């Protein structure tokens, strides 16, 4: 008689290969899951998946769109990785993006009828500061009033969207705009330079790449990065080592907010060119998925932002060719995160199959 025993044990050390392999497992499972959903909805799953994941990037324009959407996702996720690594749950990046866009957009509107090389840098700096200030609210409330940062940063998302809404229908609305909820068009000097004629990909991608490099350097090569990682692993150890917890919380939130603000500015000075209600298709929330999928590693985040960006594009293509609502992109985004989180179980726990003979058990 043989008995199959399954024993689940907590792992002491997480194998690095498995750590970076599970995102790929999650992506494959998501594609399979998506195929099943398409099939149950009455579509040919292979064809639908082809429209979703291959058609959008089968030409140069599509590839440029992929990079265009990956840019804000990558930027925000880099910032979030600082927060998440140190156990600070900033989930209001969407709000910080919006507020950064408001401040940056305000500067752009000041110069709406002027040209000059200094305008764009001013807007970019203003956007970063705007995002930073907005991220400081949950950070200060957390450090000085012990307030839960998850809830505060989340609530502030709606506040910032309502501020934007108020501005574009009210004081900042275009005087010649027939009461449309939008501002004036920004001047040419306030727009990100395009990289190629007739493609929408713009210089903002360099900001994202710079953020990746700086992020990597700070996290892995500086004392601050060391502090962040230790605090993430064990708050007690961090306190014991004498790290200034409060200052660090403020810093990681500021980094995260600045990145989100930059992403917001990149959108309004890049493809949009003005302020209106819909400046972001929830990039701030989706970037949370990107940060996780990229394993909070700057280079992993580049890869993850491209994957998640493809779900946005795929949803658009599927809407055009298959008349599936564009929201399906979110089904894929949700599934990726589900599968990723689930496969983490493999990381932290070992499943042992013990094949024991009955008489051995008796001893």
């Amino acid at each position, binding site marked *: 008689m043989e008995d199959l025993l399954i024993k*689940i044990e*907590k792992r002491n050390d997480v194998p690095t290969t498995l750590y970076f392999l599970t995102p790929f497992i999650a992506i494959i499972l998501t594609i399979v899951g998506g195929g099943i*959903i398409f099939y149950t*909805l009455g579509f040919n799953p292979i064809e639908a998946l082809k429209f979703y994941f291959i058609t959008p990037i089968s030409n140069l324009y599509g590839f440029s769109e992929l990079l265009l959407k990956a840019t804000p996702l990558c930027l925000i996720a880099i910032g979030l990785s600082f927060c998440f690594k140190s156990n600070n*749950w900033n*989930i209001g990046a969407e709000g910080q993006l919006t507020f950064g866009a408001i401040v940056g957009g305000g500067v752009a509107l000041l110069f709406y009828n002027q040209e000059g090389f200094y305008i764009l840098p001013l807007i970019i700096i203003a956007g970063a500061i705007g995002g930073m200030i907005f991220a400081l609210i949950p950070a200060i*409330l957390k450090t000085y*009033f*012990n*307030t*839960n940062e*998850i*809830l*505060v940063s*989340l*609530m*502030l998302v*709606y*506040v910032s969207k*309502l*501020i934007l*809404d*108020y501005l574009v229908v*009210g004081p900042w609305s275009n005087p010649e705009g027939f009461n449309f909820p939008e501002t004036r068009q920004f001047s040419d000097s306030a727009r990100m330079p395009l990289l190629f004629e007739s493609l929408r990909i713009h210089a903002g991608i360099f900001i994202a790449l710079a953020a990746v490099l700086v992020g990597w350097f700070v996290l892995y090569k500086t004392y601050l990065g060391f502090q962040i990682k230790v605090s993430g692993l064990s708050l007690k150890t961090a306190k014991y080592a004498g790290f200034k917890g409060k200052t660090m919380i403020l810093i990681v939130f500021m980094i995260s907010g600045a990145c989100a603000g930059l992403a917001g500015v990149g959108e309004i000075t890049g493809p949009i060119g003005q302020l209106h209600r819909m400046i972001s298709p929830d990039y701030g*929330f*989706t970037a*949370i*998925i990107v940060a*996780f999928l990229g394993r909070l590693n700057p280079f992993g985040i580049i890869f993850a932002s491209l994957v998640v960006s493809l779900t946005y594009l795929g949803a658009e293509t599927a809407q055009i060719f298959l*008349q*599936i*609502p*564009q*929201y*399906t*992109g*979110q*089904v*894929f*985004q*949700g*599934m990726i*995160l*589900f599968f990723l*989180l*689930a496969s*983490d*179980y493999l990381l*932290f726990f070992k499943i042992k199959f013990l094949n024991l003979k009955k008489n051995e058990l008796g001893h």
Partner: protein
Amino acid sequence: MSLDISFIGILIGSIMASSVPLILAASGELITERSGVLNLGVEGMMIIGAISGFALMVITDNLFIAIIGSMLSGVIISLIFGFLTQSLLTNHVATGLALTIFGIGLSAMLGKDFVGIPGKDFPILFSSLRESIPFFGPILFGHSIILYFAFVLPFLTNYFLKKTKLGLVVRAVGDSPISASNQGINVILVRYCCILYGGGMCGLAGAYLSLIYTPQWIENMTAGRGWIALALVVFATWSPIKVLIGAIIFGGISILQLHMQAVGFRIPVQFLIALPYLMTIIVLVVISRDSRKIKLNTPTSLGRIFYKEK
């Protein structure tokens, strides 16, 4: 003058109606959170409830099946969250966010053939009394059974948590899962049940929107009410009765905002809509500053993963 009074009666009635989805979802989430689980998937579970309720109504032409089905679908979708957070020990925040994102997407996918189909009249109770009694008529009568249920639910929830043994178990699990576990309570099982209950209530809240409040299916029709319900639980400092009061305040703001828009009032409506969020932040700051106050009702282990070495 009598016209004004009857108008106020109707206004109060409509405020009550708008607070129903908030009461239902927040009461469900409150039980989930009291067991120590933070489920940010409220919005996702509500919208799944909304589409399944509406779809079942169109397919079966039976409102009872639609209501029960919407609750079941909420339970099923919350089972994903329960399985991940309780059995696979995933992070509550990330899993809840994934649930919301997934739910909004899935509902739009399921609902694509139901856009533009008119809803059905939901039976209302005591409609004759509504017309015959001035002022109190529109407040007390002529509502759906779900509304009456929603207004009783916080009292039931309060009784459950404070006076029953099971309620004590839920609170014990939320406050100190380790000692609860040492007492022989199956922490994981209790949390599973609370998550599924929360899912069912969020499903019902969604069905209220698509079957009664605005009887039709519109993509993303919950429009952030799930997040307000989440805020409401915090605003109410995890007390069911305060959930009821908060829901009326938050619901009142949303109705008032519509009326002020109609008469062209000068205060920007965006400020009014933002009020629930701002008030929640203020309440959070007030209760968090004083550690004694927050300890009163806050489940101590909220959002923390419980793992027992087997």
